[in-house]
């Protein structure tokens, strides 16, 4: 059973303490009640994918090509490509990569909470960084870091998390493929820590999943 969660990072900041408490309650409920029930439902339904929204949360569960994959995980010969079995991990701590079938981002050497996230390419094309988002710049989740030029049309490369722009893994003007790691983001503490800057602009980000 693969886990694939919507990007909640954009909605996780600029929250009051009450809202944050509500979020944590929602996460607990998701992990303890909703996810196991959904996993059972997906297994029984024969559907390939379930997409559930509740309030500001969105959870997507996707069945691997064969239901046996989850039971076989670890023993498979697919060299780590197999999505891991379902864990009811709160989405707020989840890796920001949107790739459900690829290995985890490179930077995660210790078993503690992740200190680094990676912005991955949304398309195949040429990488054009934004000069004002060079290494050391503070960014929030969803902030554009640059663009991928697809036949002359730029497609935004966005930061997966709040943090500081780290190493660039691709040279400006170089070709990138879909899902390729492009820029590292050094995370700023735990998700419950106060946001680095309280700019109200991002608080109005639409709640669309």
């Amino acid at each position, binding site marked *: 059973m693969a886990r694939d969660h919507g990007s909640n990072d954009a909605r996780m900041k600029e929250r009051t303490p009450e809202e944050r408490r509500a979020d944590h309650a929602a996460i607990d409920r998701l992990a303890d009640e909703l996810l196991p029930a959904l996993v059972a439902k997906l297994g029984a339904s024969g559907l*390939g994918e379930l997409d559930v929204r509740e309030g500001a949360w969105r959870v997507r569960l996707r*069945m*691997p*090509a*064969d239901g*046996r*994959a989850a039971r*076989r995980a670890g023993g*498979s*010969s*697919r060299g780590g*490509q197999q999505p891991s079995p379902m864990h009811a991990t709160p989405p707020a701590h989840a890796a920001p990569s949107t*790739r459900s*079938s*690829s290995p985890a981002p490179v930077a995660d050497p210790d078993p503690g909470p992740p200190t680094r996230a990676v912005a991955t390419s949304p*398309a*195949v*094309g*040429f990488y054009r960084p934004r000069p004002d988002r060079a290494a050391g710049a503070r960014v929030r989740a969803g902030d554009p870091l640059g663009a991928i030029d*697809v*036949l002359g*049309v730029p497609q935004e490369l966005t930061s997966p998390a709040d943090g500081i722009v780290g190493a660039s893994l691709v040279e400006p003007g170089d*070709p*990138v*493929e*879909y*899902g*390729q790691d492009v820029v590292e983001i050094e995370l700023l503490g735990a998700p419950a820590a106060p946001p680095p800057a309280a700019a109200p602009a991002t608080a109005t980000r639409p709640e669309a999943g």
Partner: protein
Amino acid sequence: MFERVLIANRGEIALRILRACRTMGIGAVLAYSEADRDSLAAQLADEAICIGPADARRSYLSASAVISAAIVTGCDAIHPGYGFLSEDAGFAEAVAAHGLTFVGPSAEVLERFASKEATRRLLGSHGLPTIPGSDGMLLDDEHALAEAERTGYPVLVKPSAGGGGKGMRMVRTPRELVAAIQICRSEARAAFGDDSLYLEKWLEDNRHVEVQVVVDRYGHGIHLGERDCSVQRRHQKLIEEAPTPALSEAAREELGDRAIRAVVAAGYENLGTLEFLVDRDANFYFIEINCRIQVEHPVTELRTGIDLVTTQLRIAAGEPLGFSQADVTFAGHAIEFRINAEDAARDFRSQAGIVERFYAPGGPGVRMDSHLYAGYEVPTYYDSLLGKLIVWGPDRPSAIARGRAALDELVVDGVITNRAFHRAMLDNPAFIEGRVTTNLVDRVGGAAFLTPRS
């Protein structure tokens, strides 16, 4: 000739195109979706580039992703394979606009042959018989009755718009016709917003026979004979063979000659397949043209010794065909079995999973085109084709004998396939006698073929 070709497809055809590029000394880059990261073609290609997620609309069907992938990898041509973008005139035009070559007919040719109805009229005007029917749309009941009388019952009432069987009824009497028109009009209006109907003669127990054509850019065209694809389920071909058991040698020659003359006259270019219905009395009627390489092209390759994919690449690069109809010789009998991840015992329900073992059969006259390997996970996102087993023999009985032996040898563990269905078909009197019609499998059900006969 091209230096580097982007293969914008997956599965066995990606591998087939890759092999053609290798034999021609052309570099091959594979464009793949996230679901196909571990595919055999991705592993074997000179370079592989991820163009999008598993959802084909954002990968294999995304014209901008495919063209951008060709540009960033330095390709000068794109081979679309079959399905996906292979017959998309807009895509072909965009490829050309970016200075690349589309391996297929030009956008203008694809446009000209895009509408089934217009193509029937066009090729009909160049001498191909089409299914008889009403002269234009039905005005009222009186007109419909007169046209049905002229066409001859049974007739098929068909809506001008749409597809998928909606608003379509077969009727055998004038009374049924009047009732059907009312129902079909309301169904067509609801489904397509257009209630215009026409009539076509209903052909009982027909066979599906298609002609392979090759036309270069200079109007020089040849046909490479026909293929019989009558073993079908819900219009999905399962077994293809050549020559067709349904027509005499003289009739097969006439079919090929008329097909190639009509498409050349109509300005077709590149590889193409003209599909015909053949009725019980061996009359043939043109239905549609496929402007691309077909799944079942190896049947023709085994009979003629001509590599269709390298020929297609040469023509697309602007080379003349280089041989004439007189140079084409046909030898023996070839049969292709589509090995699908489908459970024939359970209404051909499609299957997925991890292939635990895969052994391809071999021996004289046996060819297996498949992207399977042990450990490969069959993704759920795409069609269920796992590969094609193609056998050749000097005559039909020996091809069938080789087919039986090869199917017995084929091992695919971990995923249920339709192998047993094919094996049973080769012992079925209807198949052995060459009498299978397109409706047979649907009429009796796939499971019926799995029951051992005494």
